[in-house]
């Protein structure tokens, strides 16, 4: 692993954030399996190093746009468990007062402009956020998360063209987890994904999305360069989703071999591997990591309990927020 953030505190925060995502998803999956969650949701488990490696390179004023598989981005950008679970359960205390749910979770206080249920739907939004920053003289950077499947949407090429022409401070982060729904990436993507960005004059990188330090290292460099006006950039992050496309996608052998899943779980888990490195380098010992794990799991469980008990929005809220007030 490469060296990125160079002190224990940063390492531990990255570790903690990855574990927080995993724990959040484990709880969300349980909520689904026990029929306590309305609708479906898409698990980020397995991809934690991507969101954490990138978001740890960002400030709270930096922005991200997220996807249908958005819990990881949300947690990594600083969100709170309680408000997230409340949102997933449609409760009033949720980040979106229960109106958005899993697929629209947003946390404007931490610069998360929202998950999006339209694949590729946030590519323009991210690019516009970068335009705002540049025009209004702010130094914030925007990261646009999307999947390999989303690279099929023409919108990406439209906005990359403009981002390149206008040198916008935006980083396109393609989470290539090898599948879009039930289809392998090579069946839906011709040519080269990074090559496409390069053809629009955008510097593009490929990185191991399971290596949080490698991701963070690259992200720090690119974020700094964006702040200096050298954007946009494109990163393809090789990663894997452990669960099905969504929580209900249980029998998936017809499109994805069990062996492949096992290989990633066993040898490429971002949390396990980072833990190994941390202990091998003598930065922390296993006991400390275990404590962190336990703490976070407890946190997650109590946030779930809180959310289950929390109240639904009043029916009068149904036609509130259709329009914003104009003073």
């Amino acid at each position, binding site marked *: 692993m490469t060296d990125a953030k160079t002190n224990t505190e940063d390492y531990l925060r990255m570790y903690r954030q990855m574990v927080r995502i995993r724990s959040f998803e484990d709880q969300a999956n349980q909520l689904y399996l026990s029929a306590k969650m*309305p*609708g*479906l949701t898409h698990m980020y488990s397995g991809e934690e190093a991507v969101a954490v490696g990138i978001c740890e390179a960002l400030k709270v004023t930096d922005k991200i746009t997220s996807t249908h598989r958005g819990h990881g981005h949300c947690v990594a950008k600083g969100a709170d468990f309680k408000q997230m679970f409340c949102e997933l359960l*449609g*409760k009033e205390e949720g980040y*979106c*007062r*229960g*109106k*958005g*749910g*899993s*697929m*629209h979770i947003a946390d404007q206080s931490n610069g998360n402009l929202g998950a*999006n*249920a*339209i*694949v*590729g*739907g946030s590519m323009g939004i991210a690019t516009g956020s970068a335009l705002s920053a540049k025009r209004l003289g702010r130094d914030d950077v925007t990261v646009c998360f999307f999947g390999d*499947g*989303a690279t*099929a*949407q*023409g919108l990406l090429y439209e906005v990359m063209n403009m981002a390149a022409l206008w040198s916008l401070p935006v980083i396109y982060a393609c989470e290539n987890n090898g599948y*879009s*729904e*039930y*289809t392998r990436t090579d*069946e*839906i*993507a011709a040519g080269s994904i990074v090559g496409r960005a390069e053809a629009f004059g955008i510097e593009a990188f490929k990185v191991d999305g399971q290596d949080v330090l490698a991701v963070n290292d690259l992200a720090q460099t690119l974020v700094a360069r964006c702040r200096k006006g050298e954007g946009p950039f494109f990163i393809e992050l090789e990663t894997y989703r452990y669960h099905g496309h969504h929580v209900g996608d249980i029998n998936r052998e*017809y*499109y994805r071999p069990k062996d492949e899943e096992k290989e990633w779980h066993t040898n490429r888990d971002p949390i396990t591997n980072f833990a190994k490195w941390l202990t091998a380098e003598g930065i922390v010992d296993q006991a400390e990591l275990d404590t962190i794990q336990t703490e976070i799991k407890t946190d997650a469980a109590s946030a779930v309990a809180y959310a289950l008990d929390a109240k*639904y*929005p009043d*029916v009068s*809220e*149904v*036609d509130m927020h*259709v329009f914003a007030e104009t003073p």
Partner: protein
Amino acid sequence: MRQITLSTAVNEAIAEEMRRDETIFLIGEDVAEAGTPFKITSGLVEEFGTDRVIDTPIAEPGFMGIAVGAAMTGSRPIVDLMFGDFIFLIMDQLCNQAAKTHYMSGGKLNVPLVLRTNMGATRRSAAQHSQSLHAIVAHIPGLKIAMPSSAFEAKGLLKTAIRDNNPVVIFEDKLMYQDKADVPEGELLIPFGVANVKREGSDITLVGTSSMVQVAEKAAEILAAEGISAEVIDPRTIVPLDMDTINASVRKTSRCIVIDEGHQSFGVTSEIASRLMEESFYHLDGPVIRMGAMDVPIPFSPALEDITVPTPEGVAANARKLMAGEMFNG
């Protein structure tokens, strides 16, 4: 008669038509091995091969455009659009291209394609996966719009759509995919523009589309228990729209409620109500009442979502008011 689900009915219609006509192919995201997320097209790729059951990348404008071009050149594509909400992504190809090509070419080019998609809320899928957007495409001349209200209609309308030489958009209610109905084996063609009188009645006409036909039927039962006789009409296609049947019913009952799951404003209920007024005004004892989905983005929270759509109780309540001659904001 044999009962099958709406999902099976759709599958059967596609399979039967594909067997009949080599020029038909199915195209969309995860329609082949996966059989779509709703498992509607399962088995088709095994019978017809990947050459005729074509998985696409996530590029709705692209594959819709491809379908239009294929339709112009001898193919009869069936496009699977996974959620009705994604219709916003393909509006240019659907409304600027497919809908207008026959007219703009002075009748020389045809676009015989079927766009199958869905509609319907209360699935906890939030604002971008719950819309019922048929009204907006119905506004565009050159498109026919079918709204099956059961497995029976799903099969019969889809088969008719596939044989139609025009672009046809079919909205299936995703909440009804597992609902069963009597569907005859083999050939079943339901003509476009012919409404179905689902239940006869003499006091009030309830016009419902898609799943709102069931809502209307349930309301009719509630009302029957109170001695109010409601006639229930399912237009089946909203373009073309069988106003003859609806007018005849309303001229008999003198009262009407129109129920549709699209947003109420600028929606299907407005069209039917205003046409009724123009065509049967002097037969009406009271205003035609519109009941659509609330004019709000569909909220995720179950506590809010359920109140956004018309219910049998709500329909019955309005029917009682109409019967009592109560004024509506009058």
